[in-house]
């Protein structure tokens, strides 16, 4: 009779679990194979065939190892919703905001443009110097969000939400802010220019949203094609 423990240990040698956990898994699977083997022998199968048939229960040992690893470890730390939505979303939000801050702190420091207006000189920093590099980096962040969500088995909705999550706070601000301004505009001393609000909406919601989505969608297409080609290869 084969040493089933040894056979399982050899095939699942890469299982990255604590030693007692690993031993338990090896022992449990070995018992399963041994029982299968003994049943097949009782049914009249020849020994080599019974061994082959019992081992074929695992089908793909690499896949079995990976699935046990995931079941034994990741489930502890994060449930599916956290893995597929909250973690990628909060990471993209953090990176988007952090990047903007970093560009402001360490980015190019151009000469400040002086403008002469009715009240005298006012000094402004050209917005594009900070804004454009940030906007150009957003597709990468969108791609990262899509990758993390998609890899964890996120649905289309979870992947889409993870990509666009960084612009949601701004969207909410404008959705609440715009109607309020329309209502209150005549009651406040300084009228707010609607055009400025729409520029803000474009600059903080539409353009970053499009940039994030462009990167995220590309990543998603790339990942799904890779997955399809792997499936075809494994078939």
């Amino acid at each position, binding site marked *: 009779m084969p040493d089933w423990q040894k056979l399982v240990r050899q095939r699942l040698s890469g299982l990255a679990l604590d030693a007692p956990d690993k031993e*338990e*898994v090896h*022992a*449990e*699977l070995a*018992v*399963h*194979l041994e*029982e*299968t083997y003994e049943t097949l022998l009782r049914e009249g199968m020849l020994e080599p065939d019974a061994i082959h048939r019992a081992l074929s*229960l*695992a*089908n*793909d040992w690499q*896949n*079995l190892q990976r*699935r*046990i690893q*995931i*079941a*034994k470890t990741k*489930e*502890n730390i994060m449930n599916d919703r956290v893995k597929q939505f909250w973690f990628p979303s909060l990471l993209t939000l953090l990176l988007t905001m952090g990047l903007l801050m970093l560009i402001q702190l360490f980015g190019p420091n151009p000469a400040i443009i002086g403008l002469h207006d009715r009240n005298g000189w006012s000094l402004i920093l050209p917005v594009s110097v900070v804004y454009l590099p940030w906007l150009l980096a957003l597709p990468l962040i969108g791609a990262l969000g899509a990758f993390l969500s998609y890899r964890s088995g996120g649905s289309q909705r979870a992947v889409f939400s993870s990509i666009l999550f960084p612009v949601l706070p701004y969207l909410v601000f404008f959705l609440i802010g715009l109607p309020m301004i329309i209502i209150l505009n005549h009651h406040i001393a300084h009228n707010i220019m609607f055009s400025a609000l729409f520029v803000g909406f474009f600059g903080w919601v539409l353009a970053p949203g499009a940039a994030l989505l462009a990167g995220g969608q590309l990543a998603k297409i790339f990942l799904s094609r890779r997955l399809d080609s792997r499936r075809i290869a494994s078939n």
Partner: protein
Amino acid sequence: MIGAGIKRGTAELAVLSILEEGPLHGYEMARRIEEQTKGALRFTLAALYPMLYRMEQRGWIRGNWETSGNGRRRRCYRLTPAGKKKLSPLRKEWAELFSALRQLGKVANA
């Protein structure tokens, strides 16, 4: 033959249902499910054990090592109170799905 996607969904229900009858080890669980479903639900190691470990992590089942009459040590799984609680809504969900599919069949055959 039942397709892979549906099998995945029903596997947890099958395991919880079979454990409701009493504690069982992995091999016996797979054998009984296969027997009772007339071979429609058949588990490979990669389908059964990761699922058992996941269900154990969720607290639906609990595994303990036990020694049988012939001296063989096996890990026996029992349904926990959380698992029993999970079983009835799961059964209800699947019953609703099957009833809906039956209705659909009636409409298609009408």
